[in-house]
């Protein structure tokens, strides 16, 4: 038996005895997700147990080095862990922009001090991060951002406004793009900087969305003082860090549809609508839509697997994450259109305990942002056209 087979057996056994049954159910409500942070609360005892057991093994971030609180797994082992978790429907023990986005950027661009200061706290869920990228006039055209960081001795003084800052109102720290040189070309005067959200001059204001919720905020900086040592990477070269991080963000968003997928969509629909005498979904047109969707979804998951294998073999294209982001988010929107259709009248309920306060329609509305956030589908297609297909112009 190979080491990897042994690892799979051990992992399966460990998960089996350590993942509480309650943590093997699909995520249906906001409180099912544990985000960590200074002011965090566990919504249940099983959630706490599951998180702590995984944290103690370093498996909140299985492929990070052990010295930073990770599990030290190699790519193949991390894949086995993902597969085994997915096989039992295990929830992620910790959801975090620190894990998905900042961590990889720090591992690549951070200095040793920054890694030691921040990575273990991310792994242990002690600090919750938010992302300060978009501004009111710099969304998809991110590099036109205007938030200024002016030099003042060993510090920067930061002024400006961010928008679409996910969960800024709950975050402890922010990773933020600021303009440190207003005279340079637009990509060349940007720096990537970290600071505490409790710093004087930082304020946030939630934005109510069509889903009736406000995961996003406007974030304001009014003479916020931040030490220069908080810059990650080289001053004025923050665009490199930003782009690297965006690849991870796009990979994260493209994978969103897979999370909590569990049962085939057709069976979910059959439970709700019923079946005909032959056991087929009692809505032939919807059945066809679902089957076509499931073909695309299964094919996408093959492509995601292949992308990892290509990257491992050094044959991946750095812009491929844009193709996956585009495809994954469009598919996820389709999934939720189907879920709404399958749910019929029941899926229209907005405020009732029976509907978990409209979990279904709110989730449906939320997915409409998938093809906007992290770069719109059109921006992704533009990136593929130019960087992979090498088409001319602009």
């Amino acid at each position, binding site marked *: 038996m190979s080491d990897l087979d042994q690892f799979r057996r051990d992992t399966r056994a460990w998960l089996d005895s350590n993942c509480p049954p309650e943590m093997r159910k699909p995520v249906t409500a906001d409180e099912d997700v544990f985000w960590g942070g200074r002011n965090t609360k566990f919504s249940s005892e099983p959630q706490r147990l599951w998180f702590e057991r995984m944290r103690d093994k370093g498996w909140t971030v299985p492929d990070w080095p052990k010295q930073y609180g990770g599990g030290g797994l190699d790519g193949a082992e991390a894949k086995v862990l993902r597969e085994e978790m997915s096989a039992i429907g295990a929830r992620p023990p910790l959801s975090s922009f620190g894990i998905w986005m900042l961590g990889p950027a720090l591992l690549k661009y951070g200095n040793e001090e920054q890694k030691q200061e921040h990575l273990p706290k991310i792994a242990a869920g002690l600090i919750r991060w938010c992302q300060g990228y978009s501004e009111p006039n710099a969304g998809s055209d991110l590099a036109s951002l205007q938030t200024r960081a002016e030099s003042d001795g060993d510090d920067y003084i930061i002024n400006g406004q961010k928008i679409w800052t996910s969960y800024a109102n709950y975050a402890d720290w922010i990773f933020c793009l600021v303009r440190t040189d207003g005279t340079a070309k637009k990509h060349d005067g940007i720096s990537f900087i970290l600071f505490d959200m409790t710093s004087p001059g930082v304020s946030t204001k939630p934005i109510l969305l069509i889903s009736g919720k406000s995961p996003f905020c406007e974030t304001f900086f009014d003479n916020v003082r931040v030490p220069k040592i908080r810059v990650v990477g080289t001053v004025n070269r923050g665009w490199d860090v930003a782009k690297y991080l965006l690849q991870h963000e796009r990979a994260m968003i493209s994978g969103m549809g897979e999370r909590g997928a569990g049962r085939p969509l057709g069976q979910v629909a059959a439970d709700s609508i019923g079946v005909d005498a032959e056991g087929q979904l009692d809505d032939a047109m919807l059945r066809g839509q679902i089957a076509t969707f*499931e073909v695309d979804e*299964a094919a996408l998951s093959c492509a995601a697997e292949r992308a990892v294998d290509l990257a491992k073999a050094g044959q991946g294209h750095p812009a491929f994450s844009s193709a996956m982001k585009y495809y994954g988010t469009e598919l996820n929107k389709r999934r939720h259109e189907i879920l709404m259709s399958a749910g019929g009248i029941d899926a229209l309920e907005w405020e009732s305990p029976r509907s978990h306060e409209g979990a279904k329609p709110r989730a449906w509305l939320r997915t409409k942002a998938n093809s906007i956030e992290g770069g719109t589908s059109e921006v992704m297609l533009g990136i593929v056209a130019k960087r992979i297909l090498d088409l*001319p112009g602009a």
Partner: protein
Amino acid sequence: MPLILNEEQTMLRDSARGFIGDKAPIAHFRQLRDSKDAIGFSKEHWKTFAEMGFAGLLVPEAYGGSGLGAVEAGVIMEEIGRTLMPSPFFATAVLAVTALRGGSEAQQAAYLPKIAEGALLAALAVDEGTKHRPSNIAMKAERSGNGFKLSGDKAFVVDGHMADLLIVAARSGGSAGEREGLTLFAIDPKAKGIAIERTVMVDAHNAARIVFDNVAVDADSVIGDVDQGGALLDRVLNIGRGAVAAEMVGLSDEVFGRTVTYLKERKQFGKLIGEFQALQHRAAHLYTEIEVTRAAAMKALQLLDADAPTAAAAVAVAKAKAGTTATLAVQEGVQMHGGMGMTDQFDVGLFMKRARVCQELLGDSNFHADQLARMKKY
């Protein structure tokens, strides 16, 4: 297993691409088409295919073959898809070999070495109606003496007009719609009562309609067990579907490559048309579809080789996906080539015709999406 070709498979691809690109470019296909060639493929090329080990790719080494698997068959099919090379590879080396491997020692010894040598061509006769519905096979195989009498019509028999051996799926028991009662037979096409009509199809590739009128065959011609041919037939059809999916990946990728090249060359309104965002986005979307399809096809072929229980579902996904992607690729190819895309002189229309045939071959996208839904029980 990683979803990428390993070193040996990459070498196989390179040698196939080298030979096919060099000796059988689209001009070769056009020449056969325009001369109304009697058999529709090049015997010389098939001989070279045998020498390169391609004809016996799936034949075990004990019978003179290379003993390779579905992934390797897909590698060859993808290259065939790129130049539309007419070749007995699919019908003989993929379908027939897989069927015969479910046969007796004597049948394997009789046929497989000859196939590997390139000396024997075979065809699989399954379809009867307008659409691919293998469970609805109605062709009768009635017991008669020590053997059977076969009666019925088969259509869309790839390479049926030039086969030295026909592998025929018929109903020895049960009734249409049932899986039990199917039997596979290995039959000499010259047997009394067989009438073969070569059908000229839209894509100018080879297929035939075959009428069986009380054809007497003896018990030795049964492949596998009487009435139990369903499982073997599924295996044959699934590897065939995986192979056609790979052909469609090759075809789609080729059309796409030509289209992108055209976008970079053709000027309108004083600009390269590739500068127009509307076309850029459509090209990028098509690229994504092709990459997703490529991964799905590779997955299906790998799972077939691993004999995994999930292989059938993966094949349904791959064939369904490849059908819609190929359809999109050829439609976009013609549209983006503008008026030139409509001319016979430009190759893109040839790909469009081949894609339509590949869609129908062994089940179209709707058929396979429906299969997937059935497997998932909804």
